[in-house]
């Protein structure tokens, strides 16, 4: 009996050993997970709470998230109140003081990002119920991807200082890769500088700005508020007046309404998967960056013909 239990203990320890040596990292999104893996590689085990094809504003606080955060060494979120409706509940129930807001294993990824549309006047809910802290959809811009990776690196070093050198090296290598993709994309989309586009939700601004194009307006006049018939009609006017070349929508927002605007105005619609693992060829963050640029290029060159 005693022998068996000793054996069992050893087995248990043996099985758990690799888990102990690696940091268990939980992220809210697939993009953060992909970047977190690049920065940590063999030193971390990374899991995203949501799937790629998810509207991050609306995620039920699933109890299995609690179990994951309970075991986490590092918790990473996008911040700017993108996920605040569900992460606060999950963090409070996770019984893991290490990753509570403000603690050593907590990482908010936006730190240092040049946030678009920061609140600069009185804000109230008649203006829509999302983005009160500024636009939180910053990761589709590769430069922000680099900033995210630096924040993650700093968190890893805080939690696991003995591997500081490695995290620094991995992050540098990742940064190099992002820059390569960024330069390729800049080159690819250079001919379209100044092109005007329209989005459905306020989630393309960072990406479009990076490639020197312009988001004229969004179909959702107020973030999160379903546009009514009057707004859809007005959109046609805005699109034609501004010479808009393309309408952008993400796979998880209201494609049907965006399609209607596209049909009314005769401007093509592009469903752009700006989250990792949200469509084909977006397996990693870098793939997503490449694919979205490629899709923009193809859609815009078709228009040119």
């Amino acid at each position, binding site marked *: 009996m005693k022998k068996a239990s000793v054996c069992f203990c050893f087995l248990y320890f043996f099985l758990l050993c690799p888990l102990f040596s690696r940091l268990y990292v939980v992220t809210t999104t697939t993009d953060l997970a992909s970047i977190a893996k690049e920065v940590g590689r063999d030193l971390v085990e990374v899991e995203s709470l949501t*799937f790629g094809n*998810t*509207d991050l*504003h*609306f995620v*039920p*606080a*699933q*109890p*299995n998230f*609690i*179990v994951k955060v*309970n075991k986490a060494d590092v918790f990473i*979120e996008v*911040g*700017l*109140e993108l996920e*605040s*409706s*569900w992460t606060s*509940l999950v963090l*409070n129930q996770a*019984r893991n003081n290490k990753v*509570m*807001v*403000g603690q*050593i294993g*907590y*990482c*908010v990824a936006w*730190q*240092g*990002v*040049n*946030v678009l549309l920061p*609140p600069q006047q009185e804000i109230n*809910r008649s203006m829509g*119920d999302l983005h009160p*802290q*500024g636009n939180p959809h910053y990761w589709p811009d590769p*430069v922000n991807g*680099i*900033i995210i990776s*630096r*924040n993650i690196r700093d*968190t890893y070093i*805080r939690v696991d200082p003995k591997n500081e050198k490695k995290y620094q090296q991995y992050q*540098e290598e990742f940064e*190099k890769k992002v*820059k390569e993709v960024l*330069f*390729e994309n*800049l*080159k690819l989309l*250079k001919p379209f500088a100044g092109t005007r586009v329209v989005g459905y939700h306020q989630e393309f601004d960072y990406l479009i700005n990076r490639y020197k194009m312009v988001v004229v307006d969004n179909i959702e006049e107020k973030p*999160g*508020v*379903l546009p009514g018939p009057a707004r859809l009609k007005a959109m046609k006017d805005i699109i034609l007046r501004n010479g808009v070349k393309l309408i952008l929508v993400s796979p998880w*927002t*209201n494609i049907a309404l965006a399609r209607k605007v596209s049909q009314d105005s005769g401007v093509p619609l592009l469903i752009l998967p700006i989250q990792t693992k949200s469509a084909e060829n977006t397996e990693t963050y870098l793939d997503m960056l490449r694919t979205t640029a490629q899709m923009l290029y193809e859609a815009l060159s078709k228009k040119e013909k």
Partner: protein
Amino acid sequence: MRKTLIWLFLFSSASLIAQTELDEIEKELREAEKRGEEQKSAMGSTPRLVPVRQRTGFIVDRASIPDIFTVADIVHEQDAYGIRRETKNNIDVREVEFGFSGFVDWLAHGNALFALHRDDHQDLQGRYIFDIHELFLDFYNLPYNLRARVGKMFLDAGRLNSIHRHDWFFTNAPLIHKAVMNDLFVGEGAADTGIEIAYLMPWDFFQELKIGIFRGRIFGHGHTDGIEKAAPLWLGRLKQFFPLVGNLGTEFGFTYLRYQPTISPHDVDYTYGSDITFRWFHSRIYRFIFTTEFWYKELYRAPTPIMAGYRDSLWGFYTFFDFIFMQNYGVGYRFDYYEDYYQVYAQRRHYLGNTFWFTYRPSEFAYYRLTLEARHYHGYDGIYGINYLVFLQGTYILGFHLPHRY
């Protein structure tokens, strides 16, 4: 080193991008680093302190201002006057809740929630009662995967009871819920003061065991203090969750309650419940929920010198779905069944309910709902009645929106 690499890369990629552009990006990254450093250095010398979710310069001072909210619930009710009048046939403010929540200190998170609602008990004649609905401290970070809640709270009995009424998918409590929770006059749920300890099982799936001990002077939603008892009210709940495919998940739970209704230690009410919920969502546009809750309650009364002992019982269930489509609209249906047996009458009677509703939700902070209900009543000695009810409900939240439970 980095510079040379970029130069190398530049040459290899036919240098279509101007050097100025690259410089701009490097400059931007340096600025980001600086912004980040500034935010960090503003936190002082403690390296442990990391920035919070909000933008600097726009951080809400959560140390001196808790989250504050008001929830208002206005209902117009009308019935066809079946076997007896069941509504007031007019519009009324059903309830206003005022709440505050926030971290008390490094150890505890506090919650204070007050309500003004009518109590239709005959002694009170529908007067507005100012009631402490919930007032508790949460201890989130106890060792051994424990979590504790101390104070007054809605009991975590079944699925519905611990969810606030304004967060329900329907206007009125299911018949079995009102009966089991002994809340016929407010129609919200059973609350009591005590302590609740929840243990998160160490498995890879979510399973939580909860034990609660409460005052047990009264059971339900009464506004009196009740009487002293020989034993407290005991609560046990086991809850688990499994993600199924995609964004479909299921949660199911079992509940046990032991309550002493009288001063005699031999009189006991036992309540057993089980509940299951399925939820599915596709972003904000489509959401679906299905829930069934089953309850069985036994009331043991010990013999006394003047009366023989007896055993009454009641059981029932409700099952409902709600489907949210096109982001702002929702439809739902609920079936209610409830049956009781009182030894004095030596007969069973039962109730059936069919409820349909349509909800319009312009945002997360308000909804407007039309509810149609048909209640069938099978009373003693073959009495049968049916009543049709209509409810128009408007509910809104001012201020902080408490996060929804799963």
